[in-house]
């Protein structure tokens, strides 16, 4: 669970289900992509679950790695 550099602009991957966010976490950990599970920021969504914070620069790699339909990825947005 690598944290991102404080200087780096972040994005968050939103999921419809909390358990899918945990599934995605394992995929990114396996691929050694920096990420952290955090509570969904209220200004982004009022969903009470988790989302995955990633480095914005990694978003294309993340998009490729996560099976969007199976995991119910609802979007990758800047933080």
């Amino acid at each position, binding site marked *: 669970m690598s944290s991102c550099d404080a200087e780096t602009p972040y994005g968050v991957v939103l999921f419809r289900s909390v*358990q899918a966010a945990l599934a995605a976490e394992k995929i990114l950990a396996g691929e050694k992509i920096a990420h952290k599970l955090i509570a969904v920021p209220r200004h982004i969504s009022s969903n*009470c679950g988790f989302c995955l914070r990633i480095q914005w620069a990694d978003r294309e790699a993340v998009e490729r790695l996560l099976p969007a339909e199976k995991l*119910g990825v609802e979007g990758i947005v800047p933080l």
Partner: protein
Amino acid sequence: MIYFDNAATSWPKPDAVPEAMARFLRECGANPGRSGHALSIQAGRVVYEARERVARLLGLDDPLSVAFTKNATEALNVALLGLLAPGDHVITSVMEHNSVLRPLRHLEERGVGVTRLPCPEGALDPAAVARAITPGTRLVVLGHASNVTGALAPIGEVGELARARGILFCVDAAQSAGCLPIDMGAMNIDLVAFTGHKALYGPQGTGGLCLGERARGKLRPLLRGGTGSASDSDTQPDFLPDALEAGTLNAVGIAGLAAGLAFVEERTVEAIRRHELALTERLLEGLRSIPGARILGPGAAARRVAVVSFNLEGQSCSEVATALEERAGIYCRAGLHCAPLAHRQLGTFPEGAVRFSLGAFNTASQIDAALEVVRELSVSAKGA
């Protein structure tokens, strides 16, 4: 003490099971997936890992399609009540546990057509399933292994048949998950109901329903409520596992279940099966040599799980069970085993039978000791 009641609940558990539960409560017992803080995330990870282990063990392609329940009974209710509507037809067998029979009786009273196939000598003929199919048949539901005779149902043949006819196939794996290989993909099984506290060596209060691709999106949930996701909506989510998991899960139980699953995975289902098969053969052989012992179900151990029910001539099953406990500390189960139609089929209703059910921790010397006592009891009955 000799514990021969593993088909009711396995005991003892691997040490890792209570340890995992204590660790969960001490170190990360927060609400899995409700809050987004570190403890909640850690609890969520424990639950997700258990999903992965279940999916791997049962040959399910997607861990998110494992919905946890409190036992196999709840899983079967979720499947049967969720899927069947008035006008639908469902095929089952008389060998089923009440956890299948009672929900089906309830549905029948509400307009679902139910065919309960007879099983002469406890064996189901797949051709009888084929003959029972009607244009309205939506589902076939069968126990993988009988909790009365241990007999294996022809799951492979029925799966193929159901798939070819476009009918969903649900398997009650309460007596098989963990001690018999199951591969939902290869066996054409659409729904598996499992329980955590038997051959998966987890605690009571755990179980679940696995949904293959064809079953997804087809179940009306039994319960609706909070899931930690989609909190902005007051409508129950339609995606798995949330759709079928309203309310806080038994996460401490699931932590224990994950440890039980790890135990099974480490030993391997195949090795556990070999161990239980050898014990079952020894038990069957010994019982056959006891005059007046009548064994229910198949003669060959290979056609059953490690469940052997029998009666002694001239004695009630409850007398035998009490004597086994009082003389030698042998714990087993006598009676009807929540399977009234199976005992009717086998000619042992309403009296029932004595059931020995074995697990990974039983030994050959326990089998020999129990056989010795059964032999004494049979002799004393003759002398009486």
